[in-house]
């Protein structure tokens, strides 16, 4: 699936360390027990950063990382009791045609962009204050779940690059570009950028959203290399392993103690 330019750019400012920032629906409980998860067209890419600061895609690195990340994702989900199906194409899903999948992806792209703009990039909406993550894909997502038999759909993007030096000016221009319909690539000095968005197909709601940014050029902090099994597991753990329940769920749990 397509990456969300806003998320990438906003997080570059924070580069130099690992940062994850997640939001959840107030009633969100991380999936547990036996559930069926669909991972829709995960977008995983690895490139090398040239001296000019461009990310050059590397086919072999991308293939390695893709294999590793998907394996790590399956393992991690299985540990929670989840049965994960990874879909690489829009076609081939029983019960729905490719165009239905495409429409859901397109709506999610608009919803995901809204979450990034209004949750991560500072354009806070007053009506959503203290509402947790409050966005939905609506009835179309519910119908999709009913027809396909999945409980959740996960949208994810991960990219990694191995680099020389970071250039602040470029980063700022890259961010500006995102607002005019053009997104610069990962112009930091390399590093990981990933996000995941979890939709509960019983309600259609986007119940959980997380963005991970890891800069790789700061001394003393060792970043995972997602081309390796360990690095991929680390990425999946950062991205999906530390799901926090929603506020209401936490508060109820606190009172019960």
């Amino acid at each position, binding site marked *: 699936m*397509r*990456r969300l*330019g806003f998320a990438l750019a906003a997080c570059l400012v924070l580069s130099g360390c690992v940062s994850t920032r997640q939001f959840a629906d107030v009633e969100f409980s991380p999936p547990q027990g036996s559930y069926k998860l669909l991972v829709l067209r995960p*977008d995983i*890419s690895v*490139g090398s950063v*040239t*001296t*000019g*600061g*461009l990310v*050059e*895609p*590397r*086919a*072999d690195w*991308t*293939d390695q990382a893709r294999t590793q990340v998907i394996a790590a994702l399956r393992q991690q989900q299985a540990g929670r009791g989840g049965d994960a199906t990874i879909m690489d*194409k*829009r076609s081939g899903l029983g019960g729905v045609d*490719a165009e239905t999948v*495409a429409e859901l992806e*397109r709506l999610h792209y608009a919803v995901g962009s809204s979450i990034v703009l209004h949750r991560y990039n500072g354009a806070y909406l007053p009506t959503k204050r203290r509402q947790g993550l409050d966005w939905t894909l609506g009835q179309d997502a519910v119908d999709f779940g009913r027809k396909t038999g999945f409980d959740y759909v996960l949208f994810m993007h991960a990219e990694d690059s191995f680099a020389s030096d970071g*250039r602040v*000016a*470029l980063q700022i*221009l*890259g961010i*500006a*570009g995102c607002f*005019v*319909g*053009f*997104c*610069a*690539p990962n*112009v930091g000095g390399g590093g990981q950028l990933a996000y995941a968005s979890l939709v509960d197909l019983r309600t259609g709601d986007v119940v959980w959203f997380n963005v991970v940014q890891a800069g790789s050029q700061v001394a003393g902090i060792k970043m995972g290399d997602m081309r390796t099994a360990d690095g991929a597991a680390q990425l999946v753990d950062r991205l999906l392993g530390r799901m926090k329940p929603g506020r209401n769920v936490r508060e109820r749990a606190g009172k019960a103690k």
Partner: protein
Amino acid sequence: MSPIDRRSFLHGGLGAVAALYAGSAQARVLPRDMAPLIGPGYRAQDEDEKGLWQLMERVEEEVSGSNLLIRDDRLTTYLGDIIGRVGGPAAKDMRIYLARIPEFNAVMFPTGFAVVFSGLLLRMRNEAQLAGVIAHESAHFLRKHQLRGWRDTRRKTDIFSFLAMGAGVAGGATGVYAGDLVRLAQFGTILSLLRYNRTLEAEADAMGVRLLADAGYDPMSMSETWEQLIGELNLSAKYRGKHRERDFALFSTHPSPESRMADLKLSAAEVRQPGKSYRDFRDRYLAELAGIRPQLLDDQVKLNDPGASQYVVETLARDGWNGFLRFHEGEIWRLRGKKGDEERAAQGYAAAVFYADAPADAWRWHGIMLQKRGRTGEAKAAFTRYLQMAPNAPDAPFVRQMLAS
């Protein structure tokens, strides 16, 4: 992107960057020197090329699944046939997609798929002109321009990438439509790297002419396309009260459309062989486009770029005026809305309804213009005619009310 992207001409962000390394004026590239660098069934070879291909395969997946494409099997087949004729040794490997974007443009990607914008189909007068643009794009692929351009860019310093980034930002801001295709694919920088420097464009022109003539098309059609582009840019500027030349002042080292047109004429004369006949396949083109042309013209006129639209209408009217073109002439004036334009629009609609093929919309607008001039009786007759022709039109309830009042 293509040499004939009018947005990039007008705004020139990337043009300025390209000029940095394009050098000054140089001799014309000769068609006979342009041998294809790849053969049939070509696949990526080097490491960087493989990475580019993998990325572009994902771009193609996005593009092919996009709802911005015009899904018309007949047209798609027609375009595929053309690339099959002018694609040289890679003819069978190339794919072509038609996007509903009212811009004068086409893009060839490094893996051999091309995206043709619908605005291009509107402007071409015959199949040879369209084939010329497609041949030019094919030449980019056959000469490995994307890879060469990418390697060239990669060699640049940090200063360069800074400039490229700024230009990319400017490029994103120039045209909503092109920008959106960039956003669709989400590989903006990679796409911006597909804009070529002057040498590569000159190569594609020279080779395109040759591919065109080899396929039996009139090679002169490419310079005609440029002539039309120049005419359109000039009229567009004139209708907004400015000079086109102003737009070139920023990067005067960049070749002017006029010099490319001149080179294309020389090259076309060179590749023609005595005794061989070259055709423009005009009738076939008109027949294939007949179904979609009203939509294409509508998309253009509604952008309210009156000079460009008027140029397009007049170009089409070289084959004779009809109710449909007269109607759009009225639309152009109505949308421009300057002093006296409404009167011109009224005249356009009045002229349109004299033709038997005037669209229903012409009668509706004719009625509105009459009503605004107090000619109520005639207005009602026009509205009645509109409702007869389009009883279920979305605005029929409103027009019925106008009729009743």
